[in-house]
């Protein structure tokens, strides 16, 4: 039960992009198509999970004064592995992601989970936390990517959905569309979280 809680909080209630508002850069930059958004989501999930495990394993042997450099080295190593794998097996997507793949090293959400969670918790819990956060990241990227590609290009994952006559709204594949969309999605998630908290409160009061 507790493990499920650690895993599931990243999905909606503490969604990294739409609630914590960390790592907005990839959410803006690589979500113009579902394929790049998914690849980026998977990469970040891989990096954040591995890094949480590594940090959790070494947390007792590291002098707190040098913990950040250690985190960065760990993250950079994992990102290099991920980018080499992508380059080898998915060269086209690797090209599409471009500089943003290397930028994963400095994504706030990865460092934040290492510092806030993995440095204080056991390996299993850290793994679940990282994986949950990564899944939340994928969910957010998928929502943004699907809306942007559908409205801005009339397709999903490259398959034509709305037909050839659909007048594509260019704004959705351009940066302003991403900014506006994420702003309104954040507002929507805020609404959901608020409603959920209210319900939780009512339930707790009923119990006590």
């Amino acid at each position, binding site marked *: 039960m507790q493990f499920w809680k650690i895993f599931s909080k990243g999905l909606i209630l503490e969604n990294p992009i739409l609630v914590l508002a960390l790592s907005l850069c990839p959410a803006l930059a690589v979500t113009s198509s579902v394929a790049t958004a998914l690849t980026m989501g998977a990469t970040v999930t891989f990096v954040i999970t591995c890094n949480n495990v590594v940090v959790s394993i070494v947390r007792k042997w590291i002098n707190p004064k040098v913990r950040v450099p250690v985190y960065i080295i760990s993250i950079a190593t994992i990102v290099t592995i991920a980018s080499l794998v992508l380059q080898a097996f998915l060269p086209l997507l690797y090209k599409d992601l471009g500089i943003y793949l290397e930028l994963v090293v400095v994504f706030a959400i990865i460092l934040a989970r290492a510092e806030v969670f993995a440095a204080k918790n056991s390996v299993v819990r850290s793994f679940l936390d990282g994986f949950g956060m990564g899944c939340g990241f994928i969910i957010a990227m998928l929502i943004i990517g699907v809306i942007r590609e559908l409205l801005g290009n009339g397709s999903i994952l490259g398959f034509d959905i709305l037909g050839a006559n659909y*007048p594509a709204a*260019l704004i959705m594949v351009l940066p302003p569309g991403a900014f506006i969309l994420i702003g309104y999605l954040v507002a929507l998630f805020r609404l959901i979280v608020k409603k959920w908290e209210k319900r939780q409160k009512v339930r707790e009061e009923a119990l006590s």
Partner: protein
Amino acid sequence: MSEQSIHQEDRQTKLLVSSSPHILSNDSTRKIMWTVIIALVPAIVFAIYYFGLPAFQTLAIGGISAVVFEVIVQKIRRKPITVSDGSALLCGLLLAMCLPPQVPVYLPIVGSFLAIVVAKHAMGGLGQNIFNPAHIGRAALMVSWPVAMTSWTKMQSVVDTVTTATPLNILKMQGYEALIDTFGSQTEMYKALFFGLRNGSIGETSAFLLLIGGVFLIYKRYIDWVAPVCMIATVGILTWLFGGSNGIGSGDPLFHMMAGGLIIGAFFMITDYVTTPITRKGKIIFAVGAGTITVIIRLIGGYPEGVCYSILLMNCVTPLIDRFIQPGQYGRK
């Protein structure tokens, strides 16, 4: 404004306790909005007469879809339905007036959706929106469908002096001499701009008829004259100074003051109660800023016309202006 309307409706039934000032006036949101719509009527009628059926279609679709979206959103939000106050209709009409007459049917519909749902109700409804809804609609359409928004097909009009590009477009692409050539002479050009015998968006053709509407609103004291005058004067002075090709002071201020969406922007957009500063000093700052940005976009920027963007940019800083231009308390030196 909305508070006043509450005053109106509740005066008979409830004891209303509110903060000062306790001024009773007969102006309600409904009255003001419908008066503004009446002020737009001359320009709308002329545009339909001049551009024909396409303009009527665009205006009708814009207005009707705005009202429909308003009803739907207010139903969803479980708020009282207030379409009869005319604010949604006005918003839809202003949006349609910012569009070229011959646009695909979906443009005014999507524009109204963006204006009413995204720009107005998502921010909290009438009185809460940061940006001018009609201009948000137009800006988003401009980015989304740039080709449809700038296709000035030759109009089947009753007057035969219509060119295929807007005057500002000709100025941007071919220069001032080419602009004069299209109209014949300079006086002919001024005449065409003033009376509206030229191509352009539905609402930006006739400076004369828009001025009539604007002066009517000023006479009714619904808008403050300083804002439009300041904005148009700023555009005039700056284009006169920097607009010409032969050094400072060789520009054509009259052309720039009458061309494009400046008149409708100055009289109907920057006098919006919600998205512009409250105090007169603030209004002057807003108007001068909007005029300056318009000139910068027209003379240096990539787009031929900048009124829409200048007003949206100034909308961003309206709260800032309001904060710095607070009137002093009574009795304070």
